[in-house]
């Protein structure tokens, strides 16, 4: 009997409370596999669609709710509410061992669990663990048989035959390998509810099945069907990378996949390009050319820097070399669960609290036990800012640790676990038992440019030019620049700013990143792993900006904070090369979770052969100088203006919002205007 989404959720809600999420979730996943509805969209070639995506996520949200009470017990709520920090579970940023998965297939994963089970017959506890997994797999095969029947009844013989083979054997052809990607993705994402945030390095995992460019239709169908999956913040895959000896891994399939990706009009899949100094220039230029033609959804990452950052956090060099990008830009080693979006810290808020004696400037509420002082020197103020910032990090981590300590009662991952050899050996669930090789957590600090520009403005106004006292400046900020609009604009538009390659300004970005790393990097978490640092904001800059008082960089109260690790929009007056040089002031080897430059380039500035050559040079130079990741928005002001006026005429116009792509037409008017303003500078 099949059930609709509400019925599925209703049926599982009865067993929300549990002391053993592993056992409960094995049962839940099996239940969903047996009772979900299956649809076969006429355009699908590889796999079916199911209706249970989100059920298990709803269940763990219900399970985690009582634990949020711990935040109040530990005095963390006021800081969360004022937008200084947050923390929570993150079950949403995972990869899997894609290379093994495609070699084994779903059937091979099952057989491997079976072997483990047979080897541990003498140990009832272990036996129970594997038996639970095997019962999930029995349900998987029942589900796959149902899927095959549905496919056949809809005339999809190729799909049905492939599924039936994969119930009893590993993939033999490119088609079956692609089907395996869809099946595994559906199992982990839709049934288990641990969102899978990358399809891995497809040019490596699919290469054994590649026979040549005559498979173009197959690849285009594959990417088109992937594009139909409704993934949050897009569905990424990666190309390139290097092996542990630093040898470049670009192959014929890398070029072919990039060509197919460029050719198709996709909205939901995005691409991570893993570049090293040995990556062929031609390949990188093909990708840049694709960006120029409007494929704004490609992120370029530096292999050398990413691997260095992962080794620095303690990953085995072999695991580091096989890293994954599990979301927008955050990198994790193979076998690592990074929980890349678990804690967040608002850097400008730290400065606000430092200036105002630990109290929120908007509400006056005391958040931290600091006394308000008139700092005699800029360095006194800066030291206080760092103390506050590091305290916010500790609180953000604590907020997360309190939740993560209870994974056992919140969420388990039988599918994800079955594909993870380390967890199988440990005989534990990746989440509920912290059984991955690396069970880490990540803190993202954001609003970096807002904070740097504010510090530089305060130094100039109060301690260099003596334009006003610090108390007077704080009063101006508290009043949100009331009656001081021209003063605000002067600071906003004419003061030195991060993003212009000015070392006297950029040095603060480096120092802040160092202070954050000191407080976060390598600190033990609640799962036997460590904390990692990232410097990206994605769209949190809107939400947290709304709770942040006016800042000394000329930002009004409530306005968004700066994006990711780059300059405040409009402040990078010296252009892209200077902007990238500024971002390189940050030691990105301390940020495995990402240091990202967003470059807005006007279409005319990268036109022609010389434009491409120059774009390539910016990327190469940025990586040589220690850059971590960059993504480009090539914007044409006139096109954006026309699309703002008449959205219906530009239904497919895409822009990169922060870590993912969106259709321009779906943005708010405020966001549209921001993009238009960004495209006009220079």
């Amino acid at each position: 009997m099949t059930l609709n989404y509400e019925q599925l959720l209703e049926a599982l809600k009865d067993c929300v409370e549990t002391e053993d999420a592993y056992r409960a979730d094995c049962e839940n996943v099996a239940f969903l596999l047996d009772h979900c509805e299956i649809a076969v969209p006429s355009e699908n070639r590889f796999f079916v669609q199911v209706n249970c995506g989100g059920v298990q996520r709803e269940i763990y949200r219900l399970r985690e709710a009582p634990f949020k009470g711990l935040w109040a017990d530990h005095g963390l709520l006021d800081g969360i509410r004022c937008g200084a920090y947050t923390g929570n579970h993150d079950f949403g940023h995972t990869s899997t061992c894609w290379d093994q998965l495609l070699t084994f297939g779903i059937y091979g994963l099952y057989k491997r669990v079976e072997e483990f089970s047979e080897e541990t017959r003498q140990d009832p506890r272990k036996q129970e663990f594997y038996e639970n997994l095997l019962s999930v797999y029995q349900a998987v095969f029942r589900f796959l048989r149902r899927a095959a029947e549905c496919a056949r009844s809809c005339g999809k013989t190729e799909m049905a035959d492939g599924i039936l083979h994969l119930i009893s054997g590993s993939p033999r052809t490119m088609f079956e390998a692609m089907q395996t990607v869809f099946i595994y993705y559906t199992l982990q994402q839709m049934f288990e509810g641990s969102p899978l945030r990358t399809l891995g390095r497809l040019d490596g995992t699919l290469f054994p099945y590649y026979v040549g460019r005559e498979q173009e239709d197959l690849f285009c169908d594959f990417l088109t069907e992937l594009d139909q999956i409704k993934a949050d913040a897009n569905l990424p895959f990666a190309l390139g990378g290097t092996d542990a000896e630093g040898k470049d891994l670009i192959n014929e399939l890398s070029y072919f996949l990039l060509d197919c990706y460029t050719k198709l009009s996709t909205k939901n899949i995005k691409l991570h390009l893993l570049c090293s100094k040995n990556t062929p220039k031609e390949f990188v230029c093909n990708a840049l050319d694709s960006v120029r033609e409007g494929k704004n959804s490609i992120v370029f990452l530096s292999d050398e820097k990413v691997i260095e950052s992962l080794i620095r956090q303690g990953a085995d060099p072999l695991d580091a070399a096989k890293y994954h990008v599990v979301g927008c830009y955050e990198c994790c080693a193979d076998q690592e669960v990074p929980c890349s979006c678990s804690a967040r810290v608002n850097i400008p808020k730290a400065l606000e609290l430092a200036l105002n004696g630990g109290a929120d400037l908007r509400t006056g509420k005391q958040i931290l036990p600091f006394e308000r002082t008139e700092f005699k020197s800029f360095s006194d103020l800066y030291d206080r800012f760092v103390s506050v910032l590091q305290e916010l990090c500790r609180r953000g981590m604590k907020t997360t640790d309190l939740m993560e300590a209870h994974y056992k009662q919140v969420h388990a991952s039988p599918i994800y676990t079955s594909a993870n050899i380390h967890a199988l050996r440990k005989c534990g669930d990746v989440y509920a038992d912290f059984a991955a090789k690396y069970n880490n957590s990540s803190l993202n600090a954001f609003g970096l440019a807002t904070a740097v520009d504010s510090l530089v403005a305060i130094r100039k106004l109060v301690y260099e030019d003596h334009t006003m006292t610090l108390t007077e400046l704080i009063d101006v900020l508290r009043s949100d620049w009331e009656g001081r609009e021209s003063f605000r604009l002067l600071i906003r538009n004419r003061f030195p700013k991060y993003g212009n390659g000015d070392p006297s300004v950029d040095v603060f970005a480096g120092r802040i990143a160092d202070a954050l790393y000191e407080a976060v990097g390598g600190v033990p978490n609640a799962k036997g792993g460590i904390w990692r640092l990232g410097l990206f904001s994605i769209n949190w800059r809107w939400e947290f900006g709304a709770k942040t008082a006016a800042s000394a960089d000329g930002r009004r109260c409530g306005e968004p904070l700066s994006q990711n690790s780059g300059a405040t929009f409009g402040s990078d007056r010296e252009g892209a090369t200077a902007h990238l040089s500024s971002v390189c002031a940050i030691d990105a080897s301390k940020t495995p979770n990402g240091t990202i430059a967003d470059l807005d380039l006007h279409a005319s500035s990268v036109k022609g052969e010389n434009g491409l050559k120059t774009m390539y040079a910016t990327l190469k130079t940025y990586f040589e100088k220690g850059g971590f990741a960059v993504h480009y928005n090539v914007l044409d002001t006139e096109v954006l203006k026309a699309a703002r006026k008449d959205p219906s005429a530009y239904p497919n116009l895409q822009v990169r919002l922060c870590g993912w792509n969106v259709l321009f037409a779906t943005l708010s008017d405020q966001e549209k205007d921001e993009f238009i303003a960004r495209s006009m500078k220079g």
Partner: protein
Amino acid sequence: MKGLISGIKRMEIHDGDGCRTTVFFKGCPLRCLWCHNPESLFLVPQTAFFSDKCIGCGLCNGNRNEQSADACPVCAQVYYGREWDAESLAEELSRDEDYFRNSGGGVTLSGGECLLQGNFAVELARLLKKRGISVFVDTCGYVKRGVLERIIPYTDRFLYDIKAIDPAVHRYCTGKENGLILENLRFLSEQGCDVEIRYPLVIGYNDGECEKIGAFLRGLKGISKIKVLQYHPFAASRYLALGMKNTMPDTVTTFEDVERSVSILKSYGLPAVNGILED
């Protein structure tokens, strides 16, 4: 040694090979009707006032000078003509050195007419060359032979404007005769310099010159490229802000116009390219 500079633009792709930083010198001996850089015409500092940006804050006290421009919160005033010494300017222009190296780029001296401030331009080019940076010189050619001779050793390529061959047309369009310009071009060619010709095509003004330009250039060696540039009258707001009479012709050069000129120049065996496609 000091020079007057109207602006610096980094990551410029239209002024020669690779990623370049272009420095705009103040002052020009010509008065081309279609000049796009009116702020660079005079060899004196000027403050432009963009009234549409002004918020009436009064911080400038009605002044129009370097200080008031720096104090304007919305950049409604822009000061053109800052004084630089050659060392500091060379340092400033070298900031993108790594990007130059990776793209085959460098610095382009432009303007105005960079060689009008001859000693300063030569010194700047020498300092840049000493740093191993490629130097391109964008010139109208209406300059002293001595200055040209002195800058040749530090110049990797000349970007050389040819607007007309007919002296009367040239005088009408630029206010000056073109004898010196053509002689200087011949001289650079004889010296074995790498020269890229730029022909700004303004329909109704110098489009009739194409055949003559082809015939003239055919006899010269060292011409690596002839770029036919599209004209568009987009600098009106700057003329207004500078309080200068806008002389820009109200005409548009189309893609087809440029293509036609390119094919004429090609018929003379010249390496002509369409600037719209290249830029």
